[in-house]
């Protein structure tokens, strides 16, 4: 449904174990990069079918003389096929980092390539664009930045009509965008935002996915909140993005993933979220969440978590906006199906991607914190017990679950009535056996609320050796005051 050409140069004979190992290495590298706030990734669009036809993935390093010969043939060859073949050979050579280095150092090479890019021979144009794309994908800044003379043309071509070509231009631009602030400082005055705004009206899914990728790279930039997001918000892009996220038969997963991430970068930068709310972001995202919950029940292994994650983040952050309280925003988000959907997605996370559980629970917190209605839904839809089952997953998850339960309990006796008697008390006693301060601290908060609104609970607590459970933490600095207070309440009411 959603993968087409994606490519890595897949090494021949790469076993499953090796792939897993590479994945672990990549994951570790990405985590490190993120902690250093250097998380950038480029996308390589290689046509696998063409590669197969060209005879496998052996990449040859080209020398100066060969590169010059290929360029000469491409530019001045007599026969069209000959010129095309020359560029294809060059392109294949450029898959190798060493060839790239030699290429960029050759005088006039980029100029010639740009000339071919703007030539009147369609297939030469395409091959020249592919060569540029290979260069743009390089991790060496010097190589990627060598593509800069081409950017005004890449942007011009976005208003064209040849979708394969536009797609290539977009992926190339996307790769260049993440390269450095210097590159973006050139692209912004060159009109990248209006160019994208015009291009997003294309009906072609491949173009849209590429555009979403490029835009997400732009929005992820460090300087985006000040320099980029305001002009994006001022364009027609947000309306189109929301349209592309509408659930329904026309929703394409690959496209939606890219634009959901775009929306996330915009929203979490907190530039003007009220505007997005007036444009119906909460409604669209809420309906999309429902759709995704239905989808995860139907399909396996579709990679849906890649879309669920940004949607959850967007919703959760948007809910904290004051504008969300007004009629336009909150009406649709009072629908209790959102809670049902979220729990189905929490179960999905538990099975497929447990590291995303905290994000789902964060959304649940934001839904329930100030909403008696949603807290009531948790009770009436019988979701308290499933929530308790999540307590064994991890400390972070436990703290969040307990916070949600506190959200329910703090609303008073009518709510606590449904929390005790039941599984909650024995579960809390189990929590007290742990040593994580935050988990225990949150458990103590919940106990206070429970004792306050359900005096019988304090009695039961005593009878189930609650005091001994509390004693464990009497000496812990962050916990002792609360421990003592609870001991007092339990003993003397």
């Amino acid at each position: 449904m959603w993968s087409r050409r994606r490519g890595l140069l897949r090494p021949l004979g790469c076993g499953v174990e090796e792939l897993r190992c590479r994945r672990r290495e990549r994951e570790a590298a990405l985590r490190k990069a993120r902690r250093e706030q250097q998380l950038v990734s480029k996308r390589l669009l290689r046509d696998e079918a063409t590669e197969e036809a060209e005879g496998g993935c052996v990449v040859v390093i080209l020398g100066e003389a060969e590169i010059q010969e290929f360029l000469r043939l491409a530019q001045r060859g007599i026969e069209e096929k000959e010129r095309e073949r020359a560029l294809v050979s060059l392109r294949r050579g450029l898959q190798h980092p060493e060839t790239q280095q030699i290429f960029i150092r050759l005088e006039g090479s980029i100029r010639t390539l740009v000339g071919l890019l703007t030539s009147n021979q369609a297939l030469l144009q395409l091959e020249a664009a592919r060569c540029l794309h290979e260069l743009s994908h390089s991790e060496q800044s010097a190589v990627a930045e060598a593509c800069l003379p081409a950017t005004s043309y890449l942007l011009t071509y976005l208003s064209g009509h040849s979708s394969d070509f536009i797609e290539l231009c977009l992926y190339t631009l996307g790769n260049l965008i993440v390269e450095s602030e210097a590159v973006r400082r050139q692209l912004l005055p060159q009109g990248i935002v209006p160019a994208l705004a015009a291009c997003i009206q294309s009906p072609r899914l491949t173009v849209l996915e590429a555009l979403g990728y490029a835009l997400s790279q732009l929005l992820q930039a460090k300087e985006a909140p000040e320099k980029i997001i305001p002009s994006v918000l001022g364009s027609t892009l947000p309306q189109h993005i929301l349209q592309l996220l509408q659930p329904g038969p026309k929703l394409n997963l690959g496209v939606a993933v890219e634009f959901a991430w775009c929306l996330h970068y915009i929203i979490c930068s907190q530039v003007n979220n009220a505007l997005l709310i007036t444009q119906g972001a909460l409604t669209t995202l809420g309906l999309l969440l429902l759709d995704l919950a239905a989808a995860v029940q139907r399909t396996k292994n579709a990679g849906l978590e890649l879309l669920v994650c940004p949607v959850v983040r967007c919703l959760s952050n948007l809910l904290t906006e004051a504008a969300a309280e007004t009629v336009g925003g909150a009406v649709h988000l009072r629908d209790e199906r959102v809670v049902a959907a979220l729990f189905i997605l929490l179960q999905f996370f538990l099975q497929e991607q447990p590291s995303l559980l905290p994000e789902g629970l964060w959304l649940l917190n934001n839904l329930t914190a100030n909403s008696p209605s949603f807290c009531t839904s948790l009770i009436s839809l019988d979701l308290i017990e499933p929530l308790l089952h999540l307590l064994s997953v991890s400390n972070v998850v436990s703290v969040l679950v307990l916070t949600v339960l506190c959200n329910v309990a703090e609303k008073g006796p009518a709510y606590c009535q449904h929390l005790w008697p039941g599984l909650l008390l024995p579960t809390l006693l189990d929590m007290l056996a742990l040593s994580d301060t935050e988990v225990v601290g949150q458990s103590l908060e919940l106990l206070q609320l429970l004792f306050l609104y359900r005096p019988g609970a304090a009695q039961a607590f005593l009878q189930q050796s609650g005091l001994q459970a509390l004693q464990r933490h009497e000496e812990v600095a962050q916990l002792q005051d609360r421990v003592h207070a609870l001991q007092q309440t339990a003993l003397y009411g």
Partner: protein
Amino acid sequence: MQLPPALHARLAGAPGEAAPLPVQRDPLAGNAPFRFAARQVRFPREHEFFEDGDVQRHLYLQDVITQVAAEPERPRVPEFPCQVAGCGQVFDALQDYEHHYHTLHGNVCSYCKRAFPSGHLLDTHILEWHDSLFQILAERQDMYQCLVEGCTEKFRSSRDRKEHLVVHHLYPADFRFDKPRKGRGYPVFPSPASQVSTEAMGEDQAPSGGDTMEVCSEHAEAHPEPPRERRVYGPRIPSTICFGQGASRGFKSTKKKSKRL
């Protein structure tokens, strides 16, 4: 994590909110030493809370997670020629044809048969080259519009516009789609019907930044047009009649007339 069976039914059911149970808070709740207060939380972009999800996102971008689906074969069809009159190219794949068509036959100027990369540039070209009213208006007001989509600036002359493109929009000084008509002609997409020699194309590919600026002047003397130019205009418009920029002869006399008035 067992979900109640009725939940799936609820998801599929009608929208609606639960009638809330009555809220009744005791002032002691959350009082010192306790500190709980129900509260929404927002996370800014770089927060470590987002680390896991961000890493997943980037693994996807690097194509490690999703299975690479087999690329559907580009359907090869029996060779067919381009349907546009005068174009002899043949193709055996629809995508190749699509690109060819859009590059060479889409956005084509019906006056001079030049092809442009976008409708926007085509419109600008027609206005500046083939609209006689344009030159008249251009004497009185700023008519040369910026080539960058989204920029509404207009200029008195194409040279001013070029300067704006270079200084404000960081465009290259030899941007190929801003060639003045006086020089080697407007963009480098001459009609495929004319035989474009590879030398000519070589020329177009390496103009030095300097000379397009020089030649850009509207009042440069007439010089013999290179044979390529004449062939394009020849059959349709006699070379003595010139419209628009660069038609120095016709232009000058008009100007003199208006000055006298």
